[in-house]
């Protein structure tokens, strides 16, 4: 197994870890964190695809690399927006959780 495949598997596992945190953790801030973790995994997959497409004189295909740079900046912008929304929600309601008033997780509320 070469290095690119190893990092590809790492990226795949990171997507799984991030997805798990995104679904299970009720705190919005931790959800944002998990989503960023998931994003890091997806970017890594892009990096592996770029690395495999390398030609002589280049470390990788520059097109996916440039797309990842754009994606990192956009992910930061989205994170800033999400955090501002969560904080306003906290200021308005005094709570830092969005799950207890949605009907979808009512089951979990009874069990815990």
């Amino acid at each position, binding site marked *: 197994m070469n290095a690119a495949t190893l990092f590809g*598997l790492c990226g*795949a596992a990171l997507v*799984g870890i991030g997805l798990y*945190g995104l679904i299970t953790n009720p705190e919005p801030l931790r959800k944002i964190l998990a989503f960023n*973790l998931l994003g890091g995994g997806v970017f890594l997959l892009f*990096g592996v695809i770029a690395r495999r497409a390398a030609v002589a004189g280049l470390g990788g295909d520059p097109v996916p690399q*440039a797309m990842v740079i754009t994606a990192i900046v956009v*992910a930061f912008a989205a994170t800033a927006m999400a955090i501002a929304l969560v904080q306003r929600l*906290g200021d308005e309601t005094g709570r830092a959780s969005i799950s207890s008033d949605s009907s979808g997780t009512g089951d*979990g509320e009874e069990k815990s």
Partner: protein
Amino acid sequence: MSIASVFDVALVALILAIGASTILVRKAFAAVVMFVVYGLLLSIAWVRLHAVDVALTEAAIGGGMTGLLLLGAVARSRSVNVGGPWIGRPARLATCALCALVVAGLAIAMLHPPEVIPTLAPTVMESLPQSGLGNPVAGVLFVFRALDTLLEKVVLLLALLGVWSLAPDRAWGGMPGLHVYARSDPTLIFLAQLLPPVGIVFGIYMCWVGAKDPGGAFQGGTVLAAMWLLVIVAGLQKAPAIGRLWLRGLLVAGPVLFLAIGLAGWVFADAFLAYPAGYAKPLIVAVEAALTLSIAVALGMLAAGPPERAQQQ
């Protein structure tokens, strides 16, 4: 097994362990610290994948700026009643199965690459000399996919508008709340006086060198933004009120210049965002310089958050 592959295996194990503990650790503060470490480790992985431009961006924005943003959010949410119900055990097991399925699908896709791997690298290298740039990633960002880069700047501005619009009515046009957790400390003030001159030179250097080597407007802009935030956090200077004209002017300067040059391309080079032959490099450098300033201001204001108090005259 060579030393390099031992290093790679150890790095991957470390990234996965840190990533998992980011999710599993109880305290939000510890999770954010883990996330910053995760960002830095990921940037080493990018170096191992021979993508130094991405590594710089990941370290600066993915680790540093996002970490700052999240740390600020954790510090502010401490007073709020944190914690809702975790989902029950069956649901958690189902989630585990779903995530394992996703991982397996992605892993299979990674283990079985197509016979002929599609690549645009030869096309990029063929056309790169026309732009006068030496860094193929910068070439893709500013020549071949310039529309993406332009729209990305617009996304940054839209996100900033979104953050600002979350301000309470009384604070509109006022100052961001970054001062809330700024505690003036002589050591921090010392750093905020010593580091910014070095950081500003470094940020400009990164932007300049981006035409030829890894670096560029994003990375340079992030360093400038970090220096600005350091000065604000140390309490040497207040965050500017968002109603200030110079602030808004700086924010739009980069995208407006980019758009103007893009529109001029219609007249002088027959296509939107095309550069007239022979003038490509100076135009790109001008756009990059303006964008670096705009990115620095936009990132700084995004990290500073929505305005919280009315402007004091």
